[in-house]
């Protein structure tokens, strides 16, 4: 650039060069706003969380950050609460997968022959929980499940049963929250699965029928393999996002209790960070979470790639 500005004779030549430069930079200019947002709010903070996970700090600007190396990780791994939350995260997934994958799959296959009009009505109704704000969902279920006045417990009592502490019984609370999370997603999962199911080429099934395949054989040998990419996509979504979706319900309904029985790893992060103000612990568990889920995502993506050749 400097040699150009020295001699005025070279100035006209500078313009095509600037034009070329502009043309080379142009794609990046279009990407700039979005990428800047991701760098500022996602990737840079990810690195920062990694650094904070080796430090001890209480979130107050006036107090010093102390470098403690791997102490945070060691302390977390020694903490029964951490293993409980990790185990609960697993139980949430174990509970969510049948609710948001297996059950919707069965319903989608089973109801494929219903007339389009009534199916559209069901579809519209079943989808309602998906768009309702999670906090509203939590508030409504809290009311329905209330120990003394909730309509579900009143119904159980009128059948001569004892009222059930759906949210206060440590053995039940986690499943209650799993159910509410699943309630929110079941319609969505069903729609995706029935759309994929409807997209299966009818002539394949016709051909199998002519060859004498039973209804169950058609489902097992044609529908399930052809649906497997969609099923895997749903599994991927539930595994990666399921525990995250339950945050609002945990926070509004149980705050992780009773006795930590509903806390999962996301909720623990929140408690470490903004409950007990231990930035290091929160960041260390964030790093563990990120690495763990990254590995799981990679495994599931690899599995999905293996199944996707069915897709044509």
């Amino acid at each position: 650039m400097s040699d150009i500005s020295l001699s005025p004779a070279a100035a006209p030549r500078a313009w095509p060069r600037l034009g070329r430069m502009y043309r080379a930079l142009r794609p990046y200019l279009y990407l700039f706003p979005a990428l800047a947002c991701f760098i500022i709010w996602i990737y840079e903070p990810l690195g920062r969380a990694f650094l904070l996970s080796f430090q001890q700090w209480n979130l107050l600007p006036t107090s010093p950050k102390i470098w403690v190396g791997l102490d945070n990780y060691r302390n977390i791994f020694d903490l029964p609460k951490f293993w409980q939350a990790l185990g609960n995260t697993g139980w949430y997934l174990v509970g969510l997968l049948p609710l948001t994958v297996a059950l919707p799959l069965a319903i989608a296959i089973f109801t494929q022959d219903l007339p389009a009009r009534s199916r559209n009505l069901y579809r519209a109704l079943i989808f309602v929980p998906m768009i309702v704000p999670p906090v509203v969902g939590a508030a409504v279920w809290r009311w329905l499940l209330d120990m003394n006045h909730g309509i579900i417990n009143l119904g159980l009592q009128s059948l001569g049963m004892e009222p059930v502490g759906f949210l206060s019984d440590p053995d039940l609370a986690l499943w209650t929250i799993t159910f509410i999370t699943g309630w929110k997603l079941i319609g969505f999962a069903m729609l995706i699965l029935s759309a994929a199911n409807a997209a299966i080429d009818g002539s394949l099934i016709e051909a199998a029928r002519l060859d004498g395949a039973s209804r169950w054989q058609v489902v097992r040998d044609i529908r399930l393999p052809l649906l497997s990419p969609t099923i895997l996509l749903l599994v991927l979504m539930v595994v990666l996002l399921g525990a995250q979706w339950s945050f609002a319900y945990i926070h509004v309904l149980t705050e992780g209790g009773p006795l930590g029985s509903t806390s999962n790893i996301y909720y623990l992060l929140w408690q470490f960070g903004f409950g007990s103000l231990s930035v290091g612990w929160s960041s260390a568990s964030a790093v563990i979470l990120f690495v763990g889920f990254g590995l799981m995502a990679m495994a599931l993506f690899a599995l999905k790639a293996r199944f996707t050749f069915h897709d044509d």
Partner: protein
Amino acid sequence: MTTETTNTPLHHSRRFGPGGWETGLGHALMILASLICVFPIYWMIVTSLRPENAIFSTRLWPDAASLDNYAYALKAVPITQMLVNTFIVSIAVTVIQIFTGILAAYGFSRWKFRGSAILFAAVALTWLVPLQVVMIPNYLLVARMGMIDTLGALILPHFASAFAIMLLAQSMRSFPTEVIEAAHMDGANHAHILWHVIVPNLRGTIASLAILIFITTWNEYFWPLLLTRSPENSVIQIGLQMFITSEGTQWGPLMAASTMASLPILLVYLVLQRQVIASFMKSGLR
């Protein structure tokens, strides 16, 4: 959705068709599922309309509708202000995400350039980073900017959406290149082609994206929870929580506030039901 009617072979409908026991069972299953999905919302609205002395009534119908709970809720918590705030944040995030999404999608779909694959992967991989993982650094950043307890801080981290970029890039890639070439021949520059040729043709995609972003932002809870100090500067999801206290819950006002918090979304859904469902399905069918 178009395949629904074509997918029922003839002899098949003879065996399992309308009137068959399987169809009956199918209907029964769907009615049960619909009830489970809709009844809680129905019960919320019914409870919100009951007068205080009938709040624990189990009748499926409100005997005497009363708006007392709404009046009480509006007085106890600045709900109107919070609804306006939520509306501002949701509209701003929708407009901004679509704008940055259109720009980035054009960049990715129009040119081959150095690093495009890596940058696209960087966009796609953002959803592997949960908000909880970066919440402390993000909170600190907002604090450094002096924006704790402001609406601006609720909007800032949502300037771009990976999903919007990927969906728009996908539809721009399938946009006929002849049309773009022809516009080029006529001397149109890139900005003109993008905003006057491509964008008007992607109205459908952009509209369904807008619905999805609006609803998602309206329902967001975690980030406002971190930043809220005063109810006047927060969104409606935070306001709902104020009716749940450890001493006991005021069910009537809570249900009234919940109804108000979901009303805008439910109205959108009532009017644009098909589009809403379609846009959510797009988010799952990638």
